[in-house]
């Protein structure tokens, strides 16, 4: 695979309909290293960029489970093993009164894993990314829709890919410098 001094080619679209149609055409054409950028979540794009079932629910579940078990042990250990105190003849392992804190820490664990897991999976924070080199990319957070074919795609060829993207009802096709 030839090394390109560019990150890829970026096509700009006016509306979601054109973007989704173009993304499907790009996929059919055999491109795999693609990504789309939109100002709000657009349905029907995940399969075109090859996005599988998200890991996030599993990560969140693990976080919740960690919080739950950790929270219970946090109370069980001091009361039963570490420093047992007989208070009003109550059993050391008075588990019903440990439930509220166990519950809260379950929620805390799940929420922390969920949020930091999401940022981790998204690769954020990412201070630099080549797509920001395209001046019009500012509009991806306003009202425009972008589709990028990366140069690392085996099928990528600067001229052919550019011509192909221009034929997809794109408003503008620009080169993304690295």
């Amino acid at each position: 695979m030839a090394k390109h001094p560019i990150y890829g080619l970026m096509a700009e679209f006016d509306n979601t309909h054109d973007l989704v149609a173009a993304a499907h055409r790009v996929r059919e054409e055999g491109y795999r290293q693609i990504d789309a950028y939109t100002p709000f979540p657009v349905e029907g794009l995940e399969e075109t960029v090859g996005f599988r079932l998200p890991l996030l629910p599993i990560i969140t579940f693990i976080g919740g489970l960690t919080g739950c078990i950790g929270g219970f042990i946090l109370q069980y250990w001091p009361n039963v093993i570490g420093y047992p105190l007989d208070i009003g003849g109550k059993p050391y392992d008075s588990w019903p009164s440990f439930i509220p804190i166990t519950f809260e820490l379950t929620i805390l664990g799940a929420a922390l894993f969920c949020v930091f897991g999401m940022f981790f999976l998204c690769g954020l924070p990412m201070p630099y990314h080549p797509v920001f080199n395209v001046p019009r990319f500012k509009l991806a957070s306003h009202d425009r829709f972008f589709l990028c074919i990366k140069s690392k795609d085996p099928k990528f060829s600067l001229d052919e890919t550019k011509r192909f993207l221009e034929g997809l009802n794109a408003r503008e096709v620009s080169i993304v410098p690295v």
Partner: protein
Amino acid sequence: MDPVDPVTEEKPAFVEPGSPWIAPGHSYGSVSDRIAGVVLGRTRKGWIFGFAIAFFLFLVLNYGITMLFFVGVGKFGINIPVAWAFAITNFVWWIGIGHAGTLISAFLLLMRQKWRTSINRFAEAMTIFAVACAGMFPLIHMGRPWLFYWLFPYPDTMGVWPQFRSPLVWDVFAVSTYFTVSLLFWYVGLVPDLATLRDKAKNKLAKVAYGFFSMGWRGSVKHWRRHEVASLLLAGIATPLVVSVHTVVSFDFTIAIVPGWHSTIFPPYFVAGAIYSGFAMVIMLAIPLRKWFHLEDFITIRHLNNMGKLLLATGMIVTYSYVMEAFMAFYSADKFESYMMLNRMTGPYAIVFWTLIACNIAIPMTFLWSYRIRTNTVALFLIAGVAQVGMWLERFVIIVTSLHRDFVPSSWGQFYPTPTDWEVLFGSLGLFFCLFYLFARLLPSISIFEMRDLVHKTAEEAGVIAGAAE
């Protein structure tokens, strides 16, 4: 490479007249510009004036707390038998106010209620600031506030631990979890909007600051998908959390044996009251916000009507709880319980009790049934304010009238608030409004990306643009 000016771009109008939750004529670009314009535009005189008042009250809070720390909790009017008074009332009141924000952002998201879109952001901000105000009160109410960290389980050299069977320790976990989760939920929702502000900002400092906090968000398909999944998961876990927090707060009372506190109705009763006061606060924030920042297109009269209906619904649950509480006190045939209720209605604090009934039941439950009143901003604002006062009085009545006369008449007493009590109460309002003013100035008060999504869905439903599936 000239900078792109989004304002000069053509804007196809996407929202047709007659759409339910947004004014007609809006497009993706126009909602973005309008909401971001509030943040990126110039500071207005009205804002400075309002902030100055809030800041003055904040200074009053600082004065009150400084004197309190200097002298001791005796600066409050508390003593035996009434050892809990204003500080705990304020704590319960503030944390209750926070609940509506989470309810709007989480519960209404799960219920797929589209009208939450334009109110969820500032309601979530309200939650965070209200919980911050609430969290302060148990700390300053401690005799030795510099030892607050004893509440947390940390391995100290003596090997002793907090009493995990105590609801006061449950409270620490519930409130700190609630604060953390609310903050995370809020921040996750803010990231795409911070990216919008980063791309629109002209000022160098604003660019760097919004750029830093948006963490390089670029709106990739994968980002959005994960963002959506994360929001749904957080909504799913925040909904039981919000119920648990006020339940735990009510345990602070119900676990004790004091007549008027020891009651199984408290958890649902407290949660309903929390949501009631929270919606009242959302209304009280929404009405000036939409007027001052000209956001009437997004926070429409229909939104206010819906919030008024929710206020009415939760108010009815609160009414039912009051009736049941009084009924059970007499039906129990327990003389301490029935005396407690009689004392509330006819004793030294009877005026407070009847004001509370007027504020929470009589006034809102009479007027909120009317569509004309729910859609009249001034009337709705005033009713929400009355309900807000009523909810504060409710917590005061529960705490003080239960404590001041318990089992043995020889240990009865009275509570009178001191200047410090009032300084800290009004000062906490100052803290809240200072934070809220800063929020409204520095961050988008309405979720921009969700409004774009709303424009899209509204246009799709009206058939203005083709659906993505075609």
